[in-house]
């Protein structure tokens, strides 16, 4: 099994790409770091240097020191950007209000997304962060890296930006925090030419798709999450980079119903791996679990004495459909009644495995609360094979986009449009019949919006004819 990129990938060798010398990379001693003070007083932030959890403040301070010790021409941004960022953050704590202004329209030529303008509203105090834009870099699927790539990115970003990152942003991108407008194009040039790497999405477009670790290192994955993610991302580069949508659109891909990338809560299109045949059972391993030879749930509960494993209590009784039983010493699953919640498989991964006829369930419409309230994605296509080139998934997605672009209001997420127009309308657009799987329960109100073609004789009626039967 091997997956190939759509086009040859540039091999990244840090030694060939590097900006900084080893000396420059190790330009301060631990003593210097201990004595180091940034140029602003930040007592509240320094309070956050205590405690066992990694301190972002202490981390930032070493970046501040490093920058100070680099020659000015080895940095395209001011040496003090980290100082000023921390200083402004301290001021925000004092004021109880942020000091960042709305972004203006900045970006790289031909793209509508990937860069978010950011400006300080106290530039006189913190001049080096007066203009301090964010760049979103499209992460590789499921966020494995080679260090060559990361080191090169660090050099690039330290040289042309703040040297500060989010690893990673909420949608999945690598976030480069803070540079000037001037540096955007040079960064983009080197990113694409040297790192063979594009920007992510922002604004009213497709946001960077993301996926779970999938079959790379998970026994539960039902689909090739990375490949599907890569295919959709590269296939829809135009949608990712040039805003043409009513609002943002997120795609996330989970390999199984455990949902580790939270696609059901955080994406407009949620692709969740599943299967349609039977759970595979190794009865020997079931017995091993029962005998206590294997820790349940991969040892996830081993920090506490929960007593010996009890398959009845811990698996069979917790099955949401009650479709499991021990019969004649064997574990029996009525797969017709199974709703694939993953609990039994999670508890006994060495005895139970998902089926082999796999695909995705497709759900649509999750979003955060702004404006109509948060939504989870709605189960729309119960089962869909997910094989390269994924044409069926693309066709479905494009039908959704066509409708949303046509009907969606400005800043209306897909989920809100589905709510406004009704799920039945959405199904009509997709050209699929209604199924009870799409709802928790049928409607309780009788307010059915019948259409004229549903009713014999249509809707045209004659009041005179009616009045012949019924006196006023």
């Amino acid at each position, binding site marked *: 099994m091997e997956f190939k990129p759509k086009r040859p990938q540039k091999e990244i060798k840090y030694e060939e790409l590097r900006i900084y010398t080893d000396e420059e990379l190790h330009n301060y001693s631990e003593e210097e770091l201990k004595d180091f003070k940034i140029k602003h007083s930040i007592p509240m932030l320094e309070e956050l240097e205590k405690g066992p959890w990694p301190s972002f403040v202490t981390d930032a301070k070493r970046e501040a020191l490093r920058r100070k010790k680099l020659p000015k021409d080895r940095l395209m941004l001011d040496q003090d950007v980290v100082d000023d960022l921390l200083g402004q953050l301290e001021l925000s704590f004092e004021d109880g209000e942020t000091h960042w202004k709305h972004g203006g329209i900045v970006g790289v030529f031909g793209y509508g997304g990937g860069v978010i303008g950011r400006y300080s509203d106290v530039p006189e105090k913190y001049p080096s962060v007066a203009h301090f834009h964010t760049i979103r870099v499209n992460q590789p699927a499921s966020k494995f890296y080679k260090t060559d790539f990361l080191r090169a990115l660090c050099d690039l970003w330290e040289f042309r930006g703040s040297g500060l990152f989010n690893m990673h942003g909420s949608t999945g991108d690598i976030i480069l925090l803070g540079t000037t407008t001037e540096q955007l194009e040079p960064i983009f040039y080197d990113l694409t030419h040297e790192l063979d790497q594009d920007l992510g999405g922002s604004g009213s477009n497709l946001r960077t798709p993301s996926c779970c670790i999938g079959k790379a290192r998970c026994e539960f994955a039902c689909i090739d999450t990375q490949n599907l993610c890569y295919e959709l991302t590269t296939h829809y580069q135009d949608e990712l980079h040039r805003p043409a949508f009513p609002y943002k659109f997120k795609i996330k891909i989970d390999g199984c119903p455990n949902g580790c990338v939270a696609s*059901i809560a955080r994406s407009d299109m949620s692709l*969740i791996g*599943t299967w349609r045949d039977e759970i595979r059972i190794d009865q020997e391993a079931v017995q091993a679990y029962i005998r206590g030879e294997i820790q349940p749930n991969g040892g996830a509960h081993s920090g506490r004495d929960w007593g010996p494993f009890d398959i009845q209590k811990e698996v069979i009784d917790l099955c*949401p*459909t009650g479709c499991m039983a021990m019969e004649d010493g064997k574990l029996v699953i009525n797969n*017709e*009644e199974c*709703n694939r*919640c993953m609990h039994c498989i999670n508890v006994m991964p060495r005895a139970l495995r998902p089926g082999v006829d796999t*695909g995705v*369930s*497709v*759900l649509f419409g999750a979003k955060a609360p702004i404006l109509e309230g948060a*939504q*989870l*994605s*709605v*189960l*729309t*296509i*119960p*089962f*869909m*094979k997910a094989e390269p080139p994924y044409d*069926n998934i693309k066709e*479905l997605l494009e039908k959704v986009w066509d409708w949303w672009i046509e009907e969606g209001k400005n800043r209306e997420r897909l989920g809100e449009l589905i*709510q406004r127009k*009704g*799920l*039945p309308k959405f*199904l009509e657009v997709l*050209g*699929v*019949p*209604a*199924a*009870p*799987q*799409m*709802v*928790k*329960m*049928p*409607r*309780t*109100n*009788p*307010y*059915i*919006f019948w259409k*004229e073609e*549903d*009713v014999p*004789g249509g*809707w045209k*009626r*004659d*009041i005179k004819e*009616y009045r012949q039967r019924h006196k*006023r």
Partner: protein
Amino acid sequence: MALSQERLGKYNPEKPTENRITDIGPRHFWDFFPPVIQKNYGKWLYHDILEPGIMVHVSETGDKVFTVRCGGARFMTAENIREICDIADKYCDGYVRFTTRNNIEFMVTSYEKLQALKQDLLSRKYITGSYKYPIGGTGAGVTNIVHTQGYIHCHTPATDASSMVKALMDELMDYFTGMTLPAHVRISVACCLNMCGAVHCSDIALLGIHRKPPIVDDNIDSVCEIPLAIAACPVGALSPGKTEDGRKTIKVKEERCMFCGNCYTMCPALPIADKLGDGVAVLAGGKISNRISEPKFSKVIVPWLPNNFPRFPEVVATVKKIIEVYASEARKYERIGDWAERIGWEKFFEKCDLPFTEHLIDDYRLAYDTYRTSTQFKYTRAAWEVSKAAGGIDE
């Protein structure tokens, strides 16, 4: 002192307030309690259902009262009530009770009287052979149907109630006179969305619905307050208009109409009833009791069946089918709604062999909360149909 027998009785239209008695309320209940009920009020220890329709309640005083429950049509003549009174006088010292679900209850205090009463009741039949006072309606069966007026006496119905109930109960008789179901099944019928009968929380409910938008009468400006009629529409489908001769009228945006009939309730110049449009929606799975699960609404499971008077064969067959599948599949004590939730509504539709259509998906105001927002579902034929249509699987 007697009931008056002149055309206007003792009422004097010249002096309407003379000797007038008002606001006295209903008869006090205590006087209408049989002696055994008065004596043992608040002292009942337990009851047993001796056989379908026959209960014994036992008091801490040692007293017992035997109750025979009979199904009745809610619509009832003076002749019928007098016959009930004859029975009550003969066996029950002149006391009788009606229940919320239109049953008649006769109470006696001895087993011997009970046997005589029972025989008498079952021997009474109409000339056409139907029982006058069928005994049943207790325990895990189908008890009498609560319902509304329908065409007998209502101006807004979308179906008839008394005929549908008669047709249903004829077919469900064995469930009324037996206790063979997993739990009791409460059926109700309402002839329009006003639901005087509150069918919204029944195990099975039949609901008259319209499917054609209102038509506008020529004289609407003289019959109705047009702004009030417009305001009556919950979905803004009505707007002011002008007739060709310049009088005020109402325009109907037909594609917005959800056929609730509220406009017609407010304004008789907007008739909505129509022979071909009207029919019956079937709902299921509601309950009112707090027992085990919380009270819950009925769900629409068949969006429309025809008003096939007088016996509504499609409605009756659907109800019977649901009850039969429920009887064979549900667990003891499990109400229809609890059963459907346990197996999943997708399995309910499959097992009951009911088609699922887009009309059953909520698209009204709280619709979002009914959408399935999980991957927890079971595969059924309906799921595969969607997958096929979406290119998810091959034919």
